[in-house]
């Protein structure tokens, strides 16, 4: 667990970060907390020649509400998500999911941008971002662009991020009726299966209202965070009674290919747990109506 030699540079601005990444022909990586990258480097699975630390770039961390949207800076640490009053009020699902990541040490160092860019198949926040239909603001040598979270996650540790590009911010609409439920892998505390459900429930009727919109996403089940479209379809237009939730959750494995299968959970178990945790997330989200 001794990494190979690398060059460490600390950027003070986004432009400087992009320049530091761009100027080297060797492999360079942004460092945004390092709770995935550093362990990989210590195992020598990853051997970048240069790390560009963006944790000290002003304005890249923080949580704000603006123009009816919530913005989260890329270098915002999990603990800040967990404790944010804004998120607890208008997007409790983000605070809830952040609070279930890893352990206190991880939550004090790891960042949302780092997690999304790394895209571990069992990371918690990708599912939450997909369920919330978040946008990622990305900056790179070719300028700025936006991408929907759902399109951003493409496969096993594979995201829509070109060489030299950097996530700066996540933006999403407030949604109180969203929740995250997770089966912990007991060693790593990654998600064996985690499901985020974001519901639009007809106003005024509490949990008895009709579900007008549903986005449900899973992590841990397959190569990357994905929507559970069958579940969503079974919720929309329905009152979220227990039978409805159960029947919808039964559809969780629909359309999911390449189901993970390892010593912590077989594919069969994970499929079943996707149902269980889909139901739990939906119930919890509905209860927030």
């Amino acid at each position, binding site marked *: 667990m*001794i990494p190979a030699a690398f060059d460490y540079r600390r950027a003070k601005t986004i432009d400087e970060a992009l320049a530091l990444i761009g100027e080297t022909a060797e492999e360079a990586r942004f460092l945004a907390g390092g709770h995935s990258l550093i362990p990989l480097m210590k195992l020598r699975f990853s051997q970048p020649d240069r790390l560009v630390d963006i944790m000290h770039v002003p304005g890249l961390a923080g949580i704000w509400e603006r123009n009816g949207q919530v913005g989260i800076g890329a270098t915002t640490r999990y603990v800040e998500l967990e404790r944010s009053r804004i998120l607890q009020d208008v997007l409790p699902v983000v605070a809830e999911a952040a609070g279930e990541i890893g352990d206190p040490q991880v939550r004090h160092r790891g960042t949302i941008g780092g997690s999304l860019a790394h895209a571990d198949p069992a990371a918690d926040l990708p599912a939450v971002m997909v369920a919330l239909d978040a946008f990622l603001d990305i900056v790179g040598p070719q300028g700025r662009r936006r991408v929907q979270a759902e399109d951003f996650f493409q496969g096993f540790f594979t995201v829509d991020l070109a060489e030299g590009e950097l996530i700066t911010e996540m933006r999403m609409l407030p949604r109180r009726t969203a929740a995250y439920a997770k089966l912990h892998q007991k060693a790593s505390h990654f998600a064996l299966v985690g499901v985020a459900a974001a519901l639009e429930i007809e106003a005024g009727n509490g949990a008895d209202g009709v579900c007008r919109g549903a986005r449900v996403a899973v992590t841990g089940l397959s190569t990357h965070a994905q929507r559970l479209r069958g579940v969503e379809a079974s919720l929309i237009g329905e009152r979220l009674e227990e039978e409805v939730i159960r029947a919808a959750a039964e559809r969780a494995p629909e359309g999911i290919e390449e189901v993970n299968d390892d010593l912590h959970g077989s594919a069969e178990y994970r499929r079943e747990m996707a149902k269980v945790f889909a139901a739990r997330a939906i119930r919890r989200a509905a209860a927030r109506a």
Partner: protein
Amino acid sequence: MAADATPSPGGKHVGQRLKRREDPALIRGQGTFIDDVRLPGMLHLAFKRSDVAHGRIVRVDTSAARAMPGVRLVATGADLQGVLPSVPVITPFPYPDHPAVTPDKVRYVGEPVALVVAEDRYQAQDAVEAIEVTIEDLPAVVDAETALRGEPALLHEGFANNVALRIISGTGVTEAAGTQDPEAVDNRELDAAFETAEVVISQRMVNPRIAPSAIETRGVVAQYEATRPYLTIWSTTQRPHAHRRFLAAALGLGEHQARTIAPEMGGGFGAKKIYGEDFVAAALSKQLGAPIKWIEDRSEAFLTTTHARDVIGQIELAAKRDGTVTALKARLVADIGAYEMLLTAFIPTLTHGLLSGGYAIPVIRSELIEVFTNKMPTDAYRGAGMPEAIFFVERSMELLARELGMDPAEVRRKNFIRPEQFPYKTAAGNEYDSGEYERLLDATLELAGWEEMRAEQAAARAAGRLVGLGMSFYIELCAIGPSTMFPDGGWEHGSVTVERDGRITATTGASAHGQGHETSFAQVLADQFGIEPETITLLHGDTAVAKQGVGTVASRSLVVGGTALLMAGSKVKAKMTRFAAQLLEAREEEIEFANGEVGVAGGGKLSFEEVASYAYAPQQLPAGTEPGLSEEAFWEPPGMTFPYGCYIAQVEVDRETGEVALQRFVGVDDCGTIVNPLIVEGQIHGGIAQGIGPALTEELRYDEHGQLLTGSFMDYAIPRASDLPRFELGVTVTPSPLNPLGAKGTGEAGTIGATPAVVNAVVDALSELGVRHVDPALHPEKVWRLIRGGER
């Protein structure tokens, strides 16, 4: 019967909850651990380790590594043949050669095949990465029961069917240590017991392989001074004196030319004794004329710090319908890994000795087979053979209770060794010193509110919840000794020096690594001399400071080491008494030590310091007395101590996921006299956590090729504080008659007792689904499959 309110008899300080004096430095980061040892000119050692479980080394190409910056030496196992002695083993039985760096064959993933010494740790690792090893694969032996048929391969020449040792012990075997000759066994009593049994319980049970997981990994710094010649070696060892002995011999030195220092250690748990890496560091320091440091990383720790348990037991219990157990028979298959380390072969033999548990079982027989496989060798880990025994016995008692429809507490009560039977020699051969088991059981039931728990469980079950209660009654074997019982010496050493200013410097050979000796031993001496513990310093962990020692192992430090210190203290006290009697013109019998004074009750008194000072400059020596106040003692116990306790666990199983939530954990422990209740509670808490881990989540898993799948804390789950309920604990105190302190030891108690309590609780929770037994670790998916099977 309630638990004892006063945990301990004793003087002013014994029995007090003194905070550990070790802690302020440790929690401020001021301790000196092995990696803090930095010497001028020190070089760094790193190992190239096999990534193949079983194979023949065809070629080790070190040319690229040799050319890398900072590299001082690259060596293969072949280069080191004849330079290094083999890794030491203490056993009366045959064992295979175990080179510190293998020259020809690899037998487990992680086995050293080459090494690099470089100017810094990074350069050393870079060069290790550049070494190319070509290995011709052999089939990996990963399953002990298959290995026993000699399949798919043999690990060592001379060990047919991969059997390291086969030993039969107990009823019908004349030799106390067991026999290897099945023909020499008299089966009549055993057969009769099973033929006449009204009930027979038979169950195969597995204790999974686990990792000791100390928070600090291993490490060594070796400094060889050629001109003296003298070896100073810092090592994460629980046994500095044994370490010095083997290391000195390895370098062709006498013990007078070597010094082992065990600095602060982040846990040992039995796994940190003597390893090949230490030999390598010492030999290379001699060869290169520079200090050599090696620090194990966590990946190496999972692969190459000794593992533990991995024992399969086929357990049979014969009983009457009233619950009386008449015989226990066990066939034990221990997967000991690829080689033997210091006590590898010895540890599974300890299981037999506790197969009586806390019960008067008249007939006990075991057959133990130790098997080589292509895995890391096993050795001691908190409990060392005892958790296996108690797991087998306590699961069997639970199965018997279920079979007979009896309350699990009552089945145990029915079979307890009664107080008047002590000292009690079990059919497994050990002589238990003292105990009041029924009193402790009742204290536990009262503390738990057993009847209420059972009622609440019934209500929860009626509501469809899978709530389970599990009990275990454990026995721990402590204070291993005398020397006839412990292959490496059953004594401990202590010295007490009353300094000229009346302060005390004491030394113990029981080298602590987190157990709080500096606090508890000071309490013992403070009461002996009637002074304050703050005026006493205990030194340990350095062979140049503590003259001799066995170390801190087998829950024996306070009992054996504490008593040795007390014995040394008695000699000093006797001498001080002579000086005081002379100064006060009193008779020696009148002299008392109390409140920092030495003198006659109701008469003349001197301060402790005055007497001490006088002893170093006596104006008139008492007859037959030398000046000075410094004495030492070796003490060997007449027999072993057997603390015990009862644990009750309450769990709820999530029907949907198979997750087990541990809701309550109640226990009463009896470790004899308690010197420091805070330290005992700490030991019990840590022990319980390390017993719960293997019940629920801890399990080292190898694949069919001998690759370790759980080689990091991302895959190997030790319990976190948040996984554990608040432990509800009490004590009873039944002093041991075998030592003047009345202490019994407690270091391994929690680990031994907790695993069966939790597993019993989970099985109980699942019993309505028809589940009779399940082997740990109880991973959610494993439990979920049982639930699915049961519901179908």
